[in-house]
């Protein structure tokens, strides 16, 4: 009985360990030639095509909400001239990577998990291994790299669309001054904010693709297993991404002190 409880308590640690082992396997296969360029381009195109439009659509209200919230708040403080700066800061530092994370995990990761899961239950992955080809090198590495690249691009997209959305709502709907909005951009924000956003996006893309590939390749028990794998991969990725986001942000504030005006 005690061993049963122990195994239950330790099971999540075992799963986490297997996930890390899988990530190491992927890292080991990364430099192996020949690099699957075609697969990489196809996957990058595929992930981009399922994420670009939803990401843009998410980014507009994101920018708008920030503009509304911050706009109202900042008016009460009497610091309207800093509205633009606050919006940029919020979008580039947080909204960009978070929106990217949601879309990469929800749209890109689920597609990867479903695809690999279907191949797993159709025994395609087994057949590939029997034919002497490592599916990690062949299928997973290009997907991971594609997800990372697309995540960085999406981050840029969210930043731009979010700032434009914020501008629209602040200037057109709240009657802010366009000049002040634009001029205050660099009052609080700084270049490292942009870099950290891109690094975050890169990490999020990596985590989303690794979790999705791991879950997909370990799907079992027929079509239901694939559904479960997709579901679990999205939930696990969300959990991991928010935790990692917090950690990266905390580290970033230690490394790069906020601008003091």
């Amino acid at each position, binding site marked *: 009985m005690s061993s049963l409880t122990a195994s239950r308590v330790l099971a999540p640690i075992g799963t986490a360990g297997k996930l890390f082992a899988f990530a190491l396997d992927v890292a080991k296969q990364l430099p192996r030639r020949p690099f699957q360029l075609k697969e990489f381009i196809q996957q990058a195109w595929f992930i981009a095509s399922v994420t670009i439009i939803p990401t843009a659509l998410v980014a507009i209200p994101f920018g708008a909400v920030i503009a509304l919230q911050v706009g109202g708040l900042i008016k009460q403080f009497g610091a309207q001239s800093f509205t633009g700066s606050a919006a940029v800061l919020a979008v580039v530092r947080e909204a960009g990577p978070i929106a990217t994370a949601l879309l990469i995990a929800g749209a890109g990761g689920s597609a990867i998990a479903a695809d690999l899961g*279907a*191949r797993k239950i*159709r*025994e*395609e992955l*087994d*057949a*590939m*291994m*029997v*034919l*002497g*080809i*490592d599916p990690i090198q062949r299928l997973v590495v290009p997907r991971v790299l594609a997800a990372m690249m697309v995540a960085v691009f999406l981050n840029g997209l969210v930043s731009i669309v979010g700032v434009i959305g914020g501008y629209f709502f602040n200037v057109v709907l709240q009657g802010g001054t366009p000049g002040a909005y634009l001029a205050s951009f660099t009052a609080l924000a700084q270049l490292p904010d942009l870099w950290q956003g891109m690094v975050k996006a890169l990490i999020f893309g990596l985590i989303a693709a690794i979790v999705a590939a791991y879950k997909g390749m370990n799907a079992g028990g027929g079509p239901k297993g694939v559904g479960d794998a997709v579901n679990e991969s999205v939930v696990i990725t969300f959990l991991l991404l928010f935790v990692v986001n917090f950690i990266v942000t905390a580290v970033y504030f230690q490394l790069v002190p906020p601008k003091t005006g």
Partner: protein
Amino acid sequence: MGVEIEIKDLTKSFGRQLIWGDVTLTIPAGEICVMLGPSGTGKSVLLKTLIGLLKPDRGSVVIEGVDIASCSERDLYEVRKLFGVLFQDGAMFGSMNLYDNVAFPLREHTKKSESEIRKIVMEKMELVGLVGTEDKLPGEISGGMRKRAGIARGLVLDPEIILFDEPDSGLDPVRTSFLNQLIVDLNAQIDATFLIVTHDINTARTVPDNIGLLYHKHLAMFGPREMLLSSEEPVVRQFLNAQRVGPIGMSEEKDADELEAEKDQELPPLPPIPMQMEPSNGIPRRSQREPGSWCKENGVTPPPGSFEENMSMVTEV
């Protein structure tokens, strides 16, 4: 010339559940073997262990001096090049058409030119009767065609060992019969070692040189076809003749009460042993023996009516 597979004390369990234990047998080079067993006895698991897709808990699988169970990943990928495997549903790559599927191993592992590849692929496609469907995607063809395409893909690297995972599941009796004929012809032609995992007794009775039976987490018996077909051993007899009377129950093995209840039941006589399927391409198989020769050598009288030319293939029970 095929390759021998030496399996010793192989044991596999998933978690706490033992699948089978201490399986020891030698699959002779160049012969056709069938591995039988009731559903859920781990036949497919055995097959996957032989190609190193699953690691056994104990024991060894030695092929050409390499132990699959304990060798390095690199050696494993090398040894696997000796194998051709047909998975249950063919396991074709869904994103490629049949031609690319069959050409895939050649493009990956050889430096052959596209025209050489084309020649080999078309040859194998013709062998399994799939000429004209090269441009189809696996999703667009029937299950039987996918299986045959799987065979074609398994053959392009000229394997020494060919494993079939339930070649007859989901096929009608006629297609199964054609597929069995194809297996026998292939064996005559390329001389590889064949292992077929199935629970179709008709296949088991007519195709192989040797039969193995997995039952109750162990290998109940392995030996020449005639030995098992003339065996009085309850499990072997029950399974090979598809009878209800015997130690195998609907779920797992029967308990003592059930066995006691049918103790006095008269067992139907063993049905005659059918002729082994002959190659249709005129090439004699090296491992094929005279009908009845095992029975003669071992002083066993085969059931009456055995080895008659025009005997019904289907066993009457």
